[in-house]
């Protein structure tokens, strides 16, 4: 844990939120001021105010994929919209790439969006009167690129998301998954540093969703953007996230790595939330392995220490002897018994945690 924090400090925070509030309703600002930052959603609701985001502070680091999780109405979209300044936060400070977002004037904001930000929407938000190609070229054309440049760049993006051959279709002629590919391509057309995705795959059926997640991971492996990803699907969060922020009623309940959220839930709410999560999907080999023992006879199999237990379980269970765990340079850092894997897979919560 501690090691982790030091590492993160050393990295560069691309987005930093300090006590961000978003309250809907007239005179929200003055009510908030008089409440000294202590916001009780129920009391506010009685006063006719809806609390969207409540005292959120967080940082997103360069190249990190931060997932915002929470039930419907917990304020995920609102937080995202504050950070992209689609709505103005009621109070607090948001620093994006060293600039104070709320202090930007209209023109600077447009510049920021044209060059640094890209966003993907749950219901795609494609322009119905433009073809795939024109939709993708739109942010470039808005910026003032020539038709030729923007179309050729858009064509590259079409290839990137695997829609070649469909570039002259209209959005209504595409399936949901294909439409979202267009949305993704459009958001990437200006080569943004920061990428916002608001439940991009929620409108898709499970098979397509899985396929799109794979596609997304592939893209991210190539592009390495700084990403804020909103979802209410915990499996999706676990598959994608570097870190997860869990929100409830506008408050971030916990912000941590997937493993820590499952193993050390900060609040009762988070514990309930993560109760049914299969451990093998969050635990990495390193957290269940034993220290290397020179006397032990090991099998031939070598497994990387940062692999999820889930992904190597089958292999290990097939081995009779314990297997060696190696780091990225191939040095042995520990051993793993199949009995441990069985415990993780079938044992209760406390045992899995004991392994730590």
């Amino acid at each position: 844990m501690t090691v982790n924090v030091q590492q993160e400090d050393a990295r560069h925070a691309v987005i930093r939120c300090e006590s961000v509030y978003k309250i809907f309703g007239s005179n929200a600002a003055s009510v908030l001021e008089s409440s000294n930052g202590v916001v009780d959603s129920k009391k506010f609701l009685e006063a006719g105010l809806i609390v969207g985001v409540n005292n959120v502070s967080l940082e997103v680091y360069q190249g990190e994929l931060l997932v915002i999780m929470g039930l419907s109405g917990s304020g995920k979209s609102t937080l995202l919209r504050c950070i992209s300044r689609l709505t103005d936060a009621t109070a607090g400070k948001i620093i994006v790439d060293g600039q104070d977002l709320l202090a930007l004037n209209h023109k600077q904001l447009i510049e920021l969006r044209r060059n640094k930000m890209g966003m993907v929407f749950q219901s795609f938000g494609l322009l119905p009167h433009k073809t795939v190609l024109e939709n993708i070229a739109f942010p470039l054309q808005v910026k003032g690129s020539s038709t030729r440049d923007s179309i050729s760049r858009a064509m590259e993006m079409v290839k990137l998301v695997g829609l070649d051959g469909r570039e002259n279709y209209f959005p209504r002629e595409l399936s949901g998954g294909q439409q979202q590919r267009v949305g993704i391509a459009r958001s990437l057309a200006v080569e943004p540093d920061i990428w916002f995705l608001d439940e991009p795959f929620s409108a898709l059926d499970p098979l397509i969703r899985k396929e799109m997640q794979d596609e997304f991971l592939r893209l991210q492996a190539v592009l390495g953007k700084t990403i804020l990803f909103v979802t209410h699907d915990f499996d999706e969060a676990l598959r994608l996230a570097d870190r997860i922020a869990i929100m409830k009623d506008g408050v971030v309940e916990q912000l941590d790595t997937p493993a820590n959220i499952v193993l050390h839930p900060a609040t009762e709410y988070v514990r309930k939330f993560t109760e049914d999560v299969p451990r093998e999907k969050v635990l990495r080999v390193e957290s269940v392995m034993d220290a290397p023992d020179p006397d032990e006879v090991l099998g031939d199999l070598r497994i990387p220490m940062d692999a999820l237990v889930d992904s190597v379980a089958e292999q290990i269970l097939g081995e009779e002897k314990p297997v060696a765990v190696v780091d990225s340079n191939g040095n042995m850092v520990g051993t793993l018994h199949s009995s441990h894997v069985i415990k993780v897979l079938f044992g209760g919560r406390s045992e899995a945690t004991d392994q730590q």
Partner: protein
Amino acid sequence: MDYLTKHPKTVQFIILLAVFFALCFAVSPSESNILWRLPPLLKQLPYIVNDSVRYLMFDWMPIQVYDALIDDYEEKPLFREMTRTVSSAFLLVINFIREIFLGGNKTIVAFTSWDFINENPWARWPALPWTVIVGWAILLGYKLHGKGLAVLAGVCTLYLAVFGQWKPSMETLSFVLIAAPVSVLLGLVLGIWAFKRKYAETLLNPLLNVAQTMPHYSYLVPVIVLFGVGDHAAAIATIVFATPPMVRLTLLGLQKVPADVVDAGMMSGCTAFQLMFRVLIPTARRDILIGVNQVVMQCLAMTVIASFIGAQGLGSNLMIALNSLRVGTGIEIGVCIVLIAVALDKMSLAWANKQTDYFADLSFFQRHKFALFAAIVFVVGVILAYIGALVFRDGFNYLYIVPHNKGVTTAPFWQATVDWIWDTFFYMLRTFNEFLITSVLVPMKNMYLAMPVAATFVLMMGIGYILAGIRQALIIGAFLLFIALSEYWDRALITAYIASFAVIVSAVFGITLGSICAQNATASKVILLICDFFQTFPSFIYLIPVIMLFGITDTSVIIATIVYATIPATRYTVEGLRSVPQVLHDAGSMLGVSRLQRWVSIEVPLAFPHIMLGINQTVIFALFMVIIGAFIGTTDLGQLILKAISDPQGTGIGLTLGLCVAFIGLAVDQIIRTWANERKKALGLD
């Protein structure tokens, strides 16, 4: 008793009716009794309006204007100079478009002088040969929607030429071609304004409500005062009348743009301008284009009425024909108006529904195919016209312009038919007519007139309160108060009686017809198509056949009104019944209810709010028609409005009367719409 406690509204209604009848019997009819009639406190209102307009026109803000004739400066009121400028600008454009179609020299005169024309006999703008316009119409139809529309466009334009109505038709068309674009532009600007600024929406909403329920005639009077008489004044009146639906639909379309699309536009880095013109408006394109379609239809609906203040074209010919009871000619002109309306309606709808083509890699020929064909049509048409000039050496060149009333005519045939009908059915029609008037209309009229004002207020506000709540009741009260305090309460009662009679009959017809047709998918489609078709007819057209059958009587007006107002009742009934979700039908069948039970207990209650919205439309349609009917003689508000047109003091009177009619419509609208929307929400249909 149990039933009554469960249905408090029923109790409220019973009490309301009891109070209403008690008041009717208790209040004695005497002029001094304010429960019987309110004193006309607003009597002066028309005159105040008149005086203000006069002041504005003739005395307000005099400015120095240079007059070339007397070579000196003259003092002239600013406002009148402004309206003059607008008028002459309109006149110039109308003449210009007209001369493209029909030829002439007025536009050239406007830039030179009559002397120039007299010295240079060549200085005359040639007309487009009618063959060219027919060809273009066919091409346009084909481009917009393929063969079907091409044939329709061709048939319509050919009819105009063959039946010798080319000139008035083109006059009417040129009038639409100027009024429609201005209305569209104005509507777009106002719609955008209302979308961007909440206060603008709040401001425009009541104005639009009134504008859309004011009878057509009332627009004419103030326009005459401000702009005089002539094509330009007619165009302006038409614009005022045609703009509101465009504003509505623009606003509606913009508000319907999904939030995600707007956000996506913002995140793409659009400026406010780019967001409006590259994201919002294109996305709302369909609604906006339907607005354009509405505008075109409204413009055509006004062509006849606008002829009261000097619009030339089919409308004024129709008026003349009807005035002199030449029904045959009237029918022929009516058909022309309908054809133009249908063609323009179908074309503009096709345009609205047309998807933009994406020209990826088309050849030059493919890209400019239609322009090329249009050019070919033009050349061929001109050559034909020249050949025509050689063939028809003396007399008319039929290949250039078919002169007015020199085409084929069917008028004698229609006239003969009318005469035959009269000869054959005279007694039957007269008996029916007399029966209707003496046993139904007159007693009903007397009943309405015998209603004390207090009772009317109680009834209307009571219904408003029970169905829509206290707020609506107060609004209705305010509307009624305006009418009651004006001089026109009795007239308004007469209007209300004709309209309500027509509404009741229309509703019965419409709901029955709609219910029968809704049982079957094909029948529904057919009846909706028929409704569409009849709805494109300008309202005035409905008067022609009834005059033909019943002559100039109240009966004619009522029958025309009933026919016209049955359309929305039918349409909404079909739509309402057809939109009952299939699941509920299935659920009903599973429970083993019979066809009739299902209809009574599932379909009708669910469709009822929508059907009531149809009745709401029926009321508005009926009011419009009743007022238009004044042209052939009724003794209600409409007659007074018509008189006001030729009265120099008419502005205030016309406007006040128009407001009275609008308020009757709005009072009903308030109740029904609020109720239906709440009901729909309660049923989870919205």
